[in-house]
């Protein structure tokens, strides 16, 4: 299961809870091929290929958050399309189609009772619009970075130093934290009661990750020929985000670079206690490198 599915899953669970219908009996399909014949409980389609065959009648809502869903039959409830691909064939009959995002092919003769759209980020084909969210991120993080460099310089220094001196350790801590925290948050979301906690956790995670990137930018800013610390950090943050976006375009290697920068930043924020502490690894005994006398407990 891919990690970017988790926010979608949270959103679908939230929508399901607010819709009120059958929120306590959700069926999640995450992988493989599935025939949805006569499901009477809500279905969430993750990274799977789901198919409502011709002649099938479903009475519970469907939430598409990934993968491919093909509808040939009848759905007497709402179909919510959050992400992934949704194909609605000629003979399909759907009570209500709620469109949020994702790729959609709707046959012209399909019988759709009602269409609602909560278009959050449609028409991303438009180049001007696809640039807007990253640009906003650059501006916001650069401003935050510039401000932190003036008010909380020591924190940024500590985080940046941890990344610089201990890249392997910070990346390891970041990876482990991300893995366990995301699993934990998803697990919380499944209990439905804990969805708010899960959302708070996800937000905190995003904030900590952003702080890590700001610290990378702070370090990078020192290499730029800018005198004022706030400006240098802001420019560094902007440069790092742009570089990360460019690196993301390279296959495999780019993903590794982006993963390393993001995870090591996150790990560094964690091990420095949000930058309030200069990270020092546990002290190891002083080993005589080559020749010379050993340091044994009896010598001390």
């Amino acid at each position, binding site marked *: 299961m891919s990690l970017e599915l988790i926010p979608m899953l949270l959103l679908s669970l939230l929508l399901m809870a607010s819709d009120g219908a059958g929120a306590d009996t959700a069926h999640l399909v995450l992988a493989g091929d599935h025939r949805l014949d006569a499901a009477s409980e809500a279905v969430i389609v993750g990274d799977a290929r789901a198919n409502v065959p011709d002649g099938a009648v479903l009475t519970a809502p469907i939430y598409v958050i990934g993968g491919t869903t093909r509808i040939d039959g009848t759905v007497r409830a709402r179909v919510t399309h959050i992400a992934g691909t949704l194909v609605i064939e000629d003979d399909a009959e759907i009570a209500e189609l709620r469109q949020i995002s994702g790729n959609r092919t709707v046959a012209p003769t399909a019988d759709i009772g009602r269409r609602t759209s909560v278009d959050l980020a449609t028409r991303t084909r438009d180049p001007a619009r696809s640039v807007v969210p990253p640009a906003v991120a650059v501006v916001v993080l650069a401003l935050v970075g510039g401000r932190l460099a003036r008010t909380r310089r020591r924190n940024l220094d500590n985080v940046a130093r941890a990344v610089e001196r201990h890249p392997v350790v910070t990346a390891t801590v970041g990876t482990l934290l991300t893995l366990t925290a995301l699993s934990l948050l998803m697990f919380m979301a499944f209990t439905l009661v804990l969805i708010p906690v899960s959302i708070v956790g996800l937000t905190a995670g995003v904030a900590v990750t952003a702080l890590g990137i700001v610290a990378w930018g702070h370090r990078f800013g020192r290499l730029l020929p800018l005198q004022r610390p706030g400006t240098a950090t802001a420019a560094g943050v902007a440069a790092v985000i742009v570089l990360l976006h460019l690196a993301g375009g390279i296959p495999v290697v780019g993903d590794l670079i982006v993963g390393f920068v993001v995870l090591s930043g996150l790990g560094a924020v964690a091990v420095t206690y949000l930058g309030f502490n200069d990270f020092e690894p546990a002290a190891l*005994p002083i080993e005589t490198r080559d020749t010379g006398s050993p340091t*044994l407990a009896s010598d001390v």
Partner: protein
Amino acid sequence: MHEAEAVASRRPPSRRLWLFDLIAQRRWVPVTGYVFCIALLTAGYYYNLTFVQLGLIDLGTSRLGMSGRSVSLVMALLALVALAVSVATGVVMDRRGWSGDLRTRLRVLTVVTAVQLTLTLLAPLLGAPGTFVVWVVVCAGSIGAAMPITFSFMADLIPVRDRGFAAAVPAGLSFFVASLYPQQWRVEEFSAVMAAVMAPAVVVLALLAFRPSRLVDRLARLRGRFGSGRFTRPPAPTASTSTFAVIVAAMFAVFFIDSLGFLRIIDTPAYISTSWQSPDPGVRLFIAGVHVAGAAMAGVLYTTFDWRWLLVWVYGLFGFTHLLYTFHLGTAADAVPPLLLPGMYVLAVSFYTTLNFALWPDLSTAETIGTRCAVGVGVAGWLASFLSTSLALYSDAAGVSLLAHLRYVDALALLLLAAVPLLLYAARVRVLARVELP
């Protein structure tokens, strides 16, 4: 000492692996020591993991037709004999000074490995439960004798700074191989694989141990430089006997919970056929890969953080994993379990295995390594694994449902998860009280 500390505080000591320096300087004798030590630990752990833990259960139940309960009794016997022999071996090692004598330990190990090779070849030929019990007792004796010796090589051949790495490689590698090969958990397959590896190993060991060898002489001299463990000398000397007892108890609990849960999970076709014994090689490769990644992470964290933090992580991972399994059983038992479940499990297992390899040598000096490794691995590893194996088989035979069984495991994991921070807090209170009170 103060001088050395002053130097260290001016320039932070390098945390790069010493192995890299050795290779760069082309000093092949210590590098050979690394390879020898890691290969020995990997092979030994693979043997215990597959042949002993899974192969013997198959031998007892499906080939000899013994009941689950009697196999569980035999396993408990194996644990007790292995523990007794290993502690005896460890004490003899320390008393006689073998702990400091590489060649003597190599000789004992050669004899023990030869015995194990014979046992392995005999295993598929066993025909009656009576001979099986005798076989198990001899096998337990050989395992018990080999264990403190194998672990003590870590002190001879691996410097403290590299021990996280040297522990991660056997942990990751043996699990990696075990999860890819052999496919079927049957005693004949295990036996064939083991014999093919052990036969050349016995020859090499015999050549090193019984003939005059300059390599062994030069390897023996390394010990003077990195014999004493990380927690036995400044700057973090925490290895008092009481701390050692606490760590043994903590690791016992980890192993106990793991086996208690795992042996029931692998008995459940829905879980095992979608993970460890999946027909899809991609799934098995995923599990093998997570083992390696988990061990590597644990190796990095071991050298960077205090053992207390690592214990908290291990308990946290285990508690969470068991919660995931219980939740899945309770809500969606008929659905295909997501890979996240075995993934988290494997991460936790690789974590504590790495910890287990590095911790005991690092809690010992040259004088105590035999006893401490024997007690540590014996009580925490063997006793816990096999007591819980017996208990898991017993609960299966007694008809306890998987959900009820895992609920007990969960309860234990939660209890420990709560206990560790409390104990850490109590330890701090004790330190402060000692300063305050005369």
